[in-house]
């Protein structure tokens, strides 16, 4: 249930995000979810894509600094209170979330990309509480 996330170091300048998305578009790679964490003069683009190793190779060939790490994708009903329920389960089990980002699709499902201090335990806790996780095979 581990999903591979790509992190890319980007300088804070006009067009730098567009360059990355341009390269991905050129190679037909779809970003399932992404977010930009920004500091004063740079940012980190984090994203979940269907073929992370391929995307990483392509970006490295374009001289980007790319890091791959593990995240967990939680499937939630796109209704009020569903995220809260999941978060409560995690906090009750003393799991601290480092960062997360989410997207909602049109079919009433919201996906939340999460990274915690202990991803494996997070998976275990969520599954024990009947929460649905997204397997890597479902990434498109």
């Amino acid at each position, binding site marked *: 249930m581990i999903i591979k996330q790509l*992190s890319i170091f980007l300088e804070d300048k006009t067009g*730098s995000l567009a360059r990355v998305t341009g390269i991905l578009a050129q190679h037909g790679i779809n970003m399932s979810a992404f977010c930009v964490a920004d500091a004063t*003069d740079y940012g980190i683009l984090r994203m979940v894509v269907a073929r992370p190793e391929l995307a990483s190779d392509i970006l490295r060939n374009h001289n980007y600094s790319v*890091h791959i790490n593990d995240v967990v994708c939680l499937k939630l009903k796109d209704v009020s209170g569903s995220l809260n329920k999941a978060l409560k389960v995690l906090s009750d089990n003393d799991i601290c979330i480092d960062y997360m980002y989410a997207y909602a699709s049109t079919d009433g499902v919201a996906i939340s990309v999460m990274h915690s201090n202990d991803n494996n335990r997070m998976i275990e806790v969520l599954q024990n509480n009947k929460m649905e996780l997204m397997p890597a095979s479902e990434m498109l």
Partner: protein
Amino acid sequence: MKYWRQDIECIDREELVKLQSRRLSEMVKRIYHNVPFYKNLFDQKGINPNDIKDISQLNELPFTTKKDLRDNYPFGLFAVPQSEVVRLHASSGTTGKPTVVGCTKNDLEMWSEVVARSLTMAGITNRDIMQVAYGYGLFTGGLGIHYGVEKVGASVIPISTGNTKKQLQLMMDFGSTAIACTPSYLAYLAESIEENGVKDKIKLKRAVCGAEPWSEELRRHIQEILGIKAFNIYGLSEVIGPGVAMECECQNGSHIHEDHFVPEIINPETGDVLPYGEVGELVFTTLTKEAMPLLRYRTRDLCTLNIEKCECGRTLVRMGTILGRSDDMLIIRGVNVFPSQVESVLMDIYETTPNYVLTVDRKNNLDTLEIKVEIADKFWTTEIREIENLKKRIAQSVQSTLGISAVIKLAEPHTLSRSEGKAVRVIDNRKK
């Protein structure tokens, strides 16, 4: 073969002084009678060239500066008629008129000789294939090394600068065992070799690097990546070009060919000669050069001299690493800063590459220093706070090494300019 000219390179220092004194006495008369600039200078100071008989009198004689070369552009300092000049070189002249350097046949012979000695010091023999990746042309680097390689009897590949793909191609196809180029270009080549995964296809063993100052850390970095030994060669076109001084296998200072070039270290402010071991401006007197002999030429390079006999057996004085040029030295908030110091800090930080640009500015009457450095290809984190920690770590290291604070900015990999010639790493906006 360990030495090219053992009789000179391991000469007894008393014998050397005699040789130098004889040559100086002759040289002083030569410039007095053939170069109006020196005649005027001597006459103004009331110096009679016939009185100069010993090398210890050198400090009584006037200096020659870069400005004197420019003022006498193009051939005003030549001591021979044009008919005896067989080669002309010129500096790039980025800061004014170019400076011209002429050579007679004997000068070229002497130059090849000192380069041959130098290459031998670095262990290069007639069994080597040497790629000369210095610029061929007006710049003395390419042709200067070239004739020395031929004199040693090694096979020379006159590839000149740039075209990294071709450099690597020939390095693999011809099996180059040695290369001569600037250290920053060698670092760039090393990176390309790593990136292309062709390290096992090259036979490189030795590199002769010069034309810009480099740090011990950069040397280590290059040596480790390529598994070679990299040696410093020193020279400047005004004096002759590459081959004025060279490191031996001990890699502990560069031996100056003192039978041709007499070094002094002076206080750049007062012009006083400093004792061995002290940092100051390097000054050269060319004893044997015919076309354009120079008396006490101020190089503006800052270093030390070491008179102790070297473990390699050579008695020739050694100059230390160039700590900077007296005009490259940045004075930031009253502190002397050399770009090479920043380089040595960055070499120890594995999350970055040694590619950097220093920007100095003045805001509200206070000097500011910004160091922009490239992040390494292999990104190691996904957390902003870890990048902030890295910036803090670099800033602290800069603070403790340079004694001033700096703003650290990170750049994406391969975005700062790579040099195929001399690196431009300092932008000083205060001069505007």
